[in-house]
């Protein structure tokens, strides 16, 4: 009687299916504040960039829970899939008390405008939460949705864009660091044609550009060059009117420059397909390419890699150049000054009392002690303090990586960064650190901010991303030679006719209101 013995198994299978359905369909409440009563824990959804997320009984988590006065119930999501997960979580039942929102996507903005997130504008301005009062109101404004602040932004350096260049190659060829785009072209040419590594072989090229998955206005090397040419930053204010940067003549001029770089062979040939996660550093360190336009911290990463190769000469390899002048002026591309924000969904935090409880906890999580835990770790365990700097214990590097790759993600630091900076290991590291600070101060003066950062147009929300993709694809097709200028114009015309004109009109209307 084989079937007789199999039957219970079949039933078991049915049962587990039904159970699975219950657990996924049931409304598991995020933080335990289903009704109006006070919260007894705080669930936070955040991305992690470290190899693994913190353990459930992580020491930093325990300490932070003590500071916050609420048990932190962390929901870590790998950074690469964070955007996807945000949209899925927003559409589900199990919504946490606090969510890191990385971008103002349609899913987020629609939910916020329907009242799905607490409007924090007045609460943050009240001063009841001193650590959540911004030191930089412009950035807070930029993080808002048409002036309504739906989250505590996560502060980032405003100036990060920089050219990083092979110092020894410049020296070999007797060249100076480029100060404008023409000189950059000359350096790229020399790096490609004049055998900068002196090995007698034609095996080098100028600039390294990886495949850029994101759309326009996302801090890509192309975006940086366009800003240097004076095309603005996503939007450009021309006589009080906002125009999309890609409709300016400067933008086209910049594209011709980019096209020249690529068509002359001064850029790696696989610029459209090279994997950016590993591909950017490798050719630089292995002596294939010599120019990178990315963030300043790229230079420190590269120096670190050179140090592994040869600790004696590594201080002669990397030069930090910052933003350079273009033919139409001297401009720098800044970051938005923040990287997403911590928003509070109404689905889980239902009453004002609960909201105040959450804000109080977030306030404490932005205090100096909390910032040190989030960014440095546990003092006396994985680091010690030397003056203003943290000295990390090399044997506990794994733990330090988890701290800086995960816990730092819930830090907002809107009132200023108060944790310890890592102590430079060598003189050169200190020098690089100082050069970075100097460039930040210098480039900040010429930074071109996006005048439309805070504005969210209705049409843009419904199909702006597809619209932007039209331009991003046309840009790379143009510089690769796949389409000519008429093709580029056709793409811009398509952008305009399929919603872009409406976006521009709406943005200008909002721009007028918020002035």
């Amino acid at each position, binding site marked *: 009687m084989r079937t007789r013995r199999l039957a219970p198994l079949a039933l078991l299978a049915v049962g587990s299916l039904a159970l699975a359905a219950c657990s996924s369909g049931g409304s598991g409440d995020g933080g335990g504040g289903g009704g109006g009563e006070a919260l007894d824990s705080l669930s936070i959804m955040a991305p992690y960039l470290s190899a693994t997320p913190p353990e459930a009984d992580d020491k930093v988590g325990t300490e932070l829970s003590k500071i916050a006065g609420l048990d932190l119930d962390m929901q870590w999501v790998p950074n690469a899939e964070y955007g996807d997960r945000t949209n899925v979580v927003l559409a589900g039942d199990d919504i946490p008390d606090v969510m890191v929102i990385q971008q103002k996507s349609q*899913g987020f903005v629609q939910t916020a405008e329907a009242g799905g997130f607490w409007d924090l504008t007045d609460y943050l301005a009240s001063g009841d939460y001193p650590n959540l009062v911004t030191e930089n109101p412009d950035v807070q404004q930029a993080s808002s949705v048409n002036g309504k602040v739906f989250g505590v932004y996560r502060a980032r350096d405003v100036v990060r864009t920089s050219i990083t260049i092979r110092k020894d190659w410049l020296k070999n060829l007797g060249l100076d660091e480029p100060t404008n785009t023409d000189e950059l072209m000359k350096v790229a040419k020399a790096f490609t044609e004049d055998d900068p590594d002196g090995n007698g072989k034609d095996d080098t090229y100028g600039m390294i550009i990886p495949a850029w998955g994101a759309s326009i206005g996302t801090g890509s090397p192309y975006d940086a060059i366009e800003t240097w040419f004076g095309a603005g930053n996503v939007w450009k204010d021309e006589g009080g009117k906002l125009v999309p940067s890609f409709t300016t003549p400067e933008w086209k001029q910049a594209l011709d420059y980019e096209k020249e770089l690529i068509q002359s062979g001064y850029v790696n040939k*696989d610029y459209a397909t090279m994997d950016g996660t590993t591909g950017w550093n490798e050719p630089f360190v292995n002596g294939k390419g010599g120019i990178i336009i990315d963030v300043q911290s790229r230079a420190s990463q590269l120096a670190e890699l050179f140090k592994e190769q040869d600790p004696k000469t590594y201080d002669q390899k990397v030069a930090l150049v910052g933003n350079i002048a273009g033919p139409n002026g001297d401009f720098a591309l800044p970051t938005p000054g923040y990287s997403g924000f911590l928003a509070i969904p109404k689905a889980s935090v239902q009453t004002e009392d609960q909201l105040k409880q959450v804000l109080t906890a977030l306030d404490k999580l932005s205090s100096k002690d909390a910032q040190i835990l989030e960014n440095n770790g546990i003092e006396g365990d994985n680091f010690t303090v030397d003056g203003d700097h943290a000295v990390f214990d090399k044997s506990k590097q794994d733990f330090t990586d988890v701290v800086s790759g995960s816990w730092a993600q819930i830090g907002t630091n809107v009132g200023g960064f108060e944790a310890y900076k890592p102590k430079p290991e060598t003189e050169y590291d200190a020098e690089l650190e100082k050069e970075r600070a100097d460039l930040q101060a210098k480039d900040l003066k010429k930074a071109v901010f996006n005048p439309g950062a805070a504005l969210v147009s209705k049409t843009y929300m419904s199909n702006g991303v597809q619209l932007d993709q039209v331009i991003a694809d046309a840009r790379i097709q143009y510089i690769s030679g796949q389409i000519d200028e008429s093709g580029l114009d056709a793409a811009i015309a398509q952008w305009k006719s399929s919603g872009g004109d409406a976006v521009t009109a709406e943005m200008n209307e909002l721009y007028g209101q918020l002035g």
Partner: protein
Amino acid sequence: MTAVVDVEQAGAPAPAAPPVAPRPRRRWARVVRFRWLLVMLLPGILYFLLFRIWPMWGAQIAFKNYVPFLGIQGSEWVGWEHFAEFFSNPDFPRLLGNTLILAALSLFVAFPLTIVLALLLNEVRLSVLKRTVQTLVYIPHFLSWTVVVSLTALLFAIGTGPLSSFLDGLTGTETNYLADPDWFRPLILLQTIWKSTGWGTIIFLAALASVDQEQYEAAVIDGAGRWQRTWHITLPAIRPTIIVMLILQTGEILNTGFEQIYLMSNALNRTVADVFDTYVYFTGIQQGAYSYSTAVGLSKAIVGLVLIFGTNWLAKRFNQQGIF
């Protein structure tokens, strides 16, 4: 599947079936008699109820401006707006074209190759060789698309990949095969063939095994060569299987492998790479345009339904058995 394969021999009653239509009491008796089989059927039914039928309730958000916070009931009803927006979008003809071309390639190139490979394997006399080859051609099926795409990226890397260097040597120009729109479809087809042809032969080999050997013997006596035997005996014998597989393939026609295409697409080949599935992912999951992407997905499903009914109807027209 065997039931379907055996359609030609239909008419021979299944052993358990009573010869006349059962009266109610007899029917109940059958239920009792086969109760354990029915119990074993339950997981399958539940699966379809939970994961196929129940989610259709949510498909209504295609007709609403769905905002999760307001819930499905609370969201504003907008009717066909999202469909109108999609069909008037310049993306639509491009997506439809790309999807259909990729589907046609897999249907008219990759699918026949499966049959050819099955026939070739069937002709191999040495059973050790046959089994070894079979195992080898099955292996790619078990690799994930991520692995296949990574292999492709290595083989076709500009300037350094062995295959791209070889092709460059033939043509005399250096091409970035991975980014060139003209190479996107050939590469996709190549990957599909490499990965799935071997696995696809299984069903055909099973059908081939059931071909009556006496027919071959008779044909040999009549002086038929190998080609003639294949053409006049083997192919007609597996024709019903081919038709059924063709209809099933048509049902899948619009499900162009999302993973494969997503991983293979980049800024330069997106004009030919975007298909319905990548578009739904891009707008729905990445951008949170829930209603719009549901409308797109629903449109796709309807086109797929029309295609499968159409093929089935055609199969019946040409005097073959359909599947329903």
